[in-house]
């Protein structure tokens, strides 16, 4: 696979939470060459399977979510659109923001910003509440109502580009970059003998409540699950307690209640074996990733989280480092091949 090309294709596709149908096919297409079986379930989760050949084999699930934050049309006003949010959207970045309205015939739009001319300085010190913002699609009220029904999803529109030597900047790197790392792990495992069946999963609607992970982990019933998601990387406006990783210093793994110690030990050993740097941090309770939902599925599933450091999360211009992405894929592949003594004893593999 070509990481940069595939990443651009994944990130520029539009799939706000609940509307993943646009991206599932693309995800499946990238994953397909590396797996024995592949399907997209009725909820648009993407599942690729590598079989180890054993009967009643143990199962490892590696997942990343394929939805993105976005907006949804809630009404029309003088041809402008009112909207609500899908996932956590920061109102401070909305004025003047370009969007793609995902109606049957797509429309370009800009979230209107009143002119600064004549505005009071006090008013300009405040951000504008989302309820007071409107999307300008350049249409009359009649056409807007006809062509863009209420409930139409809206995706942020921003360029995908390379930044500096190793970074890329785009919308939706959260979490398509991790999905691509999952695909990269699958590629590295191609033709390798496995101890267990490995399920590579793209989950839907993580941003609105870890929904796809809930469904797919029930359906797959894995013994172990690694959820891969992005994590906060340092930026100049961070307090020391804000960030948990630095860009370009390798994938990050949290330790805490959401992470099974045996799995964490296996990952640490795999990283040491392959000399992959891992940024270890502590997440006492909720990790805010799919692993949180997967852990309590069925009788309980042994989960861990592997994260990709990312700057400016939930903006249309997130930044990641491509070396981190590659190392993340390598680490997941290495764990799948050699999950460590504790996990193997536990699962008898």
């Amino acid at each position, binding site marked *: 696979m070509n990481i940069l090309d595939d990443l651009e294709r994944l990130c520029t596709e539009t799939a706000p939470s609940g509307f993943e149908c646009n991206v599932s096919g693309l995800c499946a297409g990238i994953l397909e060459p590396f797996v024995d079986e592949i399907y997209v379930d009725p909820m648009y989760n993407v599942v690729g399977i590598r079989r180890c050949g054993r009967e009643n084999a143990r199962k490892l699930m590696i997942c990343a979510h394929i939805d993105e934050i976005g907006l949804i049309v809630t009404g029309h006003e*003088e041809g*402008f659109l009112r909207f609500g949010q899908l996932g*956590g*959207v*920061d109102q*401070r*970045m909305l*004025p*003047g*923001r*370009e969007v793609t309205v995902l109606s049957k015939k797509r*429309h*370009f*739009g*800009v979230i*209107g*910003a*009143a*002119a*600064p*001319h*004549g*505005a009071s300085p006090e008013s*300009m*010190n*405040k*951000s*504008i*509440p989302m309820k*007071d*913002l*409107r999307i*300008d699609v*350049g*249409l*009359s009220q009649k*056409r807007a109502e006809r062509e863009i029904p209420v409930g139409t999803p809206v995706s942020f529109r*921003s*360029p995908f*580009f*390379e*930044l*500096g030597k190793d970074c890329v*900047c785009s919308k939706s790197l959260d979490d398509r970059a991790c999905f691509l790392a999952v695909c990269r792990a699958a590629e590295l495992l191609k033709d390798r003998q496995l101890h267990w069946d490995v399920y590579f999963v793209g989950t839907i609607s993580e941003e609105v409540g870890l929904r796809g992970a809930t469904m797919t982990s029930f359906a797959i019933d894995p013994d172990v699950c690694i959820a891969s998601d992005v994590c906060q990387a340092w*930026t*100049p*406006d*961070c307090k020391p307690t*804000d960030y948990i990783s630095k*860009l*370009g210093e390798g994938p990050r793994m949290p330790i805490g209640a959401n992470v099974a110690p045996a799995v964490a030990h296996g990952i640490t050993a795999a990283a040491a074996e392959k000399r992959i740097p891992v940024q270890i941090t502590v997440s006492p309770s909720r990790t*805010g990733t799919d692993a949180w939902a997967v852990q309590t599925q069925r009788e309980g599933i042994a989960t861990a989280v592997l994260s990709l450091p990312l*700057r*400016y*999360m*939930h*903006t*249309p*211009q997130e*930044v990641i480092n491509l070396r981190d992405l590659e190392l993340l894929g390598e680490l997941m592949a290495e764990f799948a091949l050699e999950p460590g003594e504790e996990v193997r004893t536990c699962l008898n593999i």
Partner: protein
Amino acid sequence: MLEYLEELCLLPGVSSFEGPVREFIKSTAMEDCGVSEEDMRTDIMGTLYIVKKASPKAVKAAKKAGRLAEGSIPKLMIAAHMDEIGFIVTHIEDNGYLRFACMGGIDKRVVLGRKVYVGQAMVPGVIGLKAIHLTTKEDREVAPDFKEMYIDIGASSREEAMENVALGDEVVFHSDFVEFGEGRVKAKAIDDRFGCAMMLKLMKEELPMDVTYAFTVQEELGTRGAYGAAYSVAPDIAIVFEGASCSDLPTVSADNKITVVGAGPVIGLVDGGAIYDRGLFELLTGLADEAGLPWQVKQKIAGGTDASTIQRSLEGIRVANISVAVRNIHSASTIASEEDMDNAYRLAKLFVEALAEGKAN
């Protein structure tokens, strides 16, 4: 009217860095508008002057139709500014991040999470924004100050950053050119590449009088190029083509909308910088009415144009103004109506012909 507009808007030309725009205008004027190197001059600050003589054919036709003034024809200057709002690099941090200041009046609420280009080498960068997860509701109710913002160019140290950028580099917004909706266009810098495009298009026409075109600099920093232009051209009449501020959102009360996109060209009456010549205002509105063109005036005293400086230059100069309403003005995603621009152009041409006819004497 979209002719030239797309190319002009895509060019970088932050105030005092207008070079790329000026070069495009010079080469286009020579290729398309029948002017030569001798007809052009650039002053010390960078304002470009192009003199286009009356077309003998147009003069003859006007004379024949009885539409040429018997006596003298006023000396006309048409002005539009080449510069656009942007930023300048003020500091490079040890960690490779850039700090910046504004060039022109930018609303700090429209820049977060935007792609930009730094310096002549157009190094891509992004204006960062702390992740929503790391903020409180109270944090998000405040618009961060420019001094808290930074540009990420993907460099991990000061040394790495300085391989590609330097203090004092200009920073320009990224924004493509999009036609959308019912005859709308979106680009950066429609304020005032629209005016530059109008001047180039007018320069192509066969007009019955001499016109001096002034493509000014640093308008966004206080109409600073217009000083030299008014002084050196010393016209009898100056008309300024501009992008007008516009807040015509449904959430803004009628008295604060200033102008409305799609309601026709904006004819200068009063704005934050000038009280336009009453006779020229009436000439413009009369011409528009006669031709059946819609027009509007600003419904709030806000914004300004190069006319503010031109009007009070020398012994005073009669000024007029045709603008189009520009939504999201001074952001990366400015929007205007194609129909407004077409009508503005028709009106501008009628205005020049009327001056030749002596209607402003």
